[in-house]
């Protein structure tokens, strides 16, 4: 690849890339995000390539692996360009049929097309699929079109044109001003106005200045940042270079979780290619801007998603947060002014530059602009990544996009914002999703995790689960978080075991309050949110555990009993084979019985019983 020394050269190179690529040429793109890969996407890719070679078609039809397309429930996913035909649940054995259909322009492979679960109708293209139709994918839109390991693909879809525009004639102050006008708020969780943060950094005369991309994405159930880094790393890199210009930064860091090896790999390839082209390094495109980005890997600590802990980790220390103020823009990495933003925030920057601050501000609600990316998981039919304008209601998310709750069960709650967030009850399903509304309801936007729960989830157990996680991940430096998370965990476990007292509820609230008010960092301050929201909206469930020693959702082990319904048991013996404690007695073809003294209520028998004879009460 040539080294580009000016914007004119960049434009010329982009033109070459566009010319050399025939947009009408058939291309089979296969989603190779982590989810689809676990479902066999690599086998699909191999099978496609093999079949094309066998038929000598490899020069006429391209095969491309891309990043996450978002509809993880229906993976592995494929798109056939230029028509944009959308295939789901693709297996390696479908390769022959796919190639046949692609090569002679015949009908698409019917059984691989998305089928509406209600009408049974098949749709052809991605934008006809309800899951996608209601999304507004300004960040994720290109994931299905580009190979993350080829910078030419990114250039072809207009990549690095925002950078060119900015270097050509948008002074740093104007960039910051546009960020403010766009209303972009930090997508890492707290939602602090990005433009204001950038402005504060510019006001600080100290040098050198640093930029950090927070890719620690610790919330369990959230994988948006991973998918963006795997699928379109250049969008983040471009955002950071624009940031370097606006903020006067000389070095940037991307801090990625240790558990994301693919994201690290794609990021490193992208950085190397960007450097080769001259988009990173000294005197970028002849503008005088010099900027380099380094990838730093986390080492397994959720608390390192907190900005001061992240900084400590880059410095080679333990991830113990520092009291703020002073904020990183005043004193950050090695005591120097530092701006830290989330992956999605950085990826939004080129979009705002190219399409304008006013365009961005036209999307969303009055105080929450733009789109938000959610990972919609849990008890929902269509799991996956969803990018929607701020202000969409939960109802639309769950029923129109998510396809509703499986097995005909009832929606009970939606956990938003990971362990720092809270549970929104089904009664608030018409809540518009934006920063202020979620905070009013007691929850938090967080980094976008959205876990749907139905009536078979026990909310006390959910609170306990999050408290176990937080007690494990607390750095332990400050007293209220270290002790508070442990005490809350103990109290919730006691309640789940049926040994709670009514006074415990007030104690839970007092402990939660003091953690919220006095903890040193965001982890401790938000750690009690799962407890506070479940107490607020599901208090009767707590009381049932305490007063009647009952778990209404039939989850808490000490409060349930497993038994076999005599009229339904067919003696198939499947339960005996999986029973962990040999607690089931019975001979083949005869009635089976569970010995309650030995039963540990693990639920293995429930999983395998075909006639559904295992009862839980």
């Amino acid at each position, binding site marked *: 690849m040539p080294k580009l020394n000016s914007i004119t050269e960049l434009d010329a190179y982009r033109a070459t890339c566009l010319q050399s690529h025939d947009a009408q040429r058939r291309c089979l793109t296969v989603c190779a995000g982590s989810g689809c890969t676990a479902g066999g996407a690599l086998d699909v890719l191999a099978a496609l390539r093999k079949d094309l070679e066998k038929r000598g078609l490899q020069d006429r039809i391209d095969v491309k692996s891309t990043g996450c397309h978002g509809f993880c429930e229906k993976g592995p996913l494929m798109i056939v360009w230029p028509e944009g035909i959308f295939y789901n649940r693709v297996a390696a054995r479908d390769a022959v049929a796919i190639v046949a259909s692609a090569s002679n322009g015949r009908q698409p492979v019917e059984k691989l097309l998305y089928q509406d679960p209600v009408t049974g109708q098949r749709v052809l293209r991605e934008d006809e699929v309800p899951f996608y139709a209601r999304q507004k994918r300004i960040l994720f839109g290109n994931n299905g079109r580009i190979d993350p390991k080829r910078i030419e693909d990114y250039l072809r879809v207009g990549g690095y044109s925002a950078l060119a525009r900015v270097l050509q004639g948008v002074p740093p102050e104007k960039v910051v001003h546009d960020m403010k006008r766009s209303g972009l708020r930090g997508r890492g969780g707290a939602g602090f106005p990005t433009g204001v943060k950038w402005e504060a950094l510019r006001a600080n005369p100290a040098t050198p200045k640093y930029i950090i991309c927070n890719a620690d994405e610790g919330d369990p159930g959230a994988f948006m940042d991973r998918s963006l880094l795997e699928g379109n790393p250049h969008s983040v890199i471009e955002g950071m270079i624009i940031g370097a210009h606006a903020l006067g930064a000389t070095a940037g860091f991307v801090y990625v979780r240790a558990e994301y090896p693919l994201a690290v790999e794609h990021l490193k390839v992208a950085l190397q290619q960007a450097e080769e082209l001259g988009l990173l390094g000294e005197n970028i495109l002849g503008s005088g801007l010099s900027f380099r980005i380094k990838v730093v890997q986390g080492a397994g600590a959720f608390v390192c998603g907190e900005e001061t802990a992240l900084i400590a980790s880059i410095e080679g220390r333990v991830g113990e947060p520092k009291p703020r103020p002073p904020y990183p823009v005043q004193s950050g990495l090695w005591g120097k002014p530092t701006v830290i933003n989330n992956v999605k925030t950085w990826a939004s920057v080129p979009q705002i530059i190219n399409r304008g601050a006013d365009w961005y501000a036209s999307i969303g609600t009055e105080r929450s602009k733009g789109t938000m990316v959610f990972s919609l998981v849990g008890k929902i039919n269509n799991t996956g990544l969803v990018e929607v304008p701020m202000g969409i209601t939960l109802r639309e998310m769950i029923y129109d996009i998510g396809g509703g709750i499986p097995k005909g069960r009832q929606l009970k709650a939606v956990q938003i914002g990971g362990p720092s967030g809270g549970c929104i009850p089904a009664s608030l399903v018409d809540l518009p999703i934006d920063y202020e509304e979620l905070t009013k309801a007691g929850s938090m936007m967080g980094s976008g995790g959205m876990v749907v729960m139905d009536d078979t989830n026990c909310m006390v157990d959910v609170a306990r689960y999050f408290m176990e996680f937080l007690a*494990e991940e607390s*750095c332990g*430096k400050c007293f209220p978080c270290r002790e508070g998370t442990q005490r809350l965990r103990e109290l919730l476990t006691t309640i789940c075991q049926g040994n709670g007292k009514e006074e415990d509820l007030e*104690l839970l609230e007092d402990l939660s309050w*003091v953690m919220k008010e006095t903890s040193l960092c965001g982890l401790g301050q938000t750690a009690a949110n799962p407890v506070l929201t479940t107490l607020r909206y599901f208090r009767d469930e707590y009381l049932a555990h305490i007063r009647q020693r009952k778990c209404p959702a039939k989850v808490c082990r000490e409060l349930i009993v497993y038994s076999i319904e005599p009229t339904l048991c067919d003696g198939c013996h499947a339960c005996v084979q999986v029973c962990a404690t040999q607690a089931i007695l019975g001979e083949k073809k005869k009635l089976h019985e569970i010995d309650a003294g030995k039963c540990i209520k693990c639920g293995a028998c429930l999983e395998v019983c075909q006639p559904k004879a295992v009862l839980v009460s």
Partner: protein
Amino acid sequence: MPKLKINGIEVEVDHGSSVLDAARFLGIPIPTLCHDDGLTPYGACRLCVVEAANSNGARPKLLSACTLPAEDGLVVQTHSARVERARKLLLELYVATAPQSKTLQDLASRYGVRQERLAPKFESCIQCGLCVRMCQEQMMAGAIGFAFRGAKRKVARAFDLTSPLCRQCGACMYICPVCELRCHGANAESTLCNGCLNFATVCFQSYDQAMCFFDPCHACEIGGPVRSDVAVKLSAVKSANEQER
């Protein structure tokens, strides 16, 4: 020089001072556990939290005074209801963690902790970090440090072996606020001492002022919160209570 407002009083302090420094300059007492004037501020005990906000009208937050830089326009409340409630709950949690500590019991009594809702843990360390900082900053040895994370976090020696840097000076034991054993107050049977909560009854019967500010306090022969070397005479308190009845 930054000008800030504490409890409605305007004060100007040296650049680089903390809000704790500024409050002390004004004579306002703020409780601390992990702070020592000779050591760098740590901000871990959270007992010194005060309500602070910039004058822009944003909702004030509770922040540790020892680490909060005194800045222009800062508005601070050191004894608001919110702060007092926070200190009281923190101390309830502290005294449940290490009920054998006199320092914690005294503070708990001073802040009106009268109920024990949490099971006592009898831990010998509250991880205030004073010993670690003492060893590193004043004794220039650095033989001990923290290790692990969360519930497992503790003050430790590397690989559980005494470091050759340790000079056996004992400064770590000297500065520890938990090491001092509690006095045996009127409720000696329970883990909540409340010894000094009984002062007022005794003092105002025989004298017309609280005697704890007199040095030494002879009123009930219980060393006041500042005196830990005076022996406790349980009988004095018991007989005084009997007199009351």
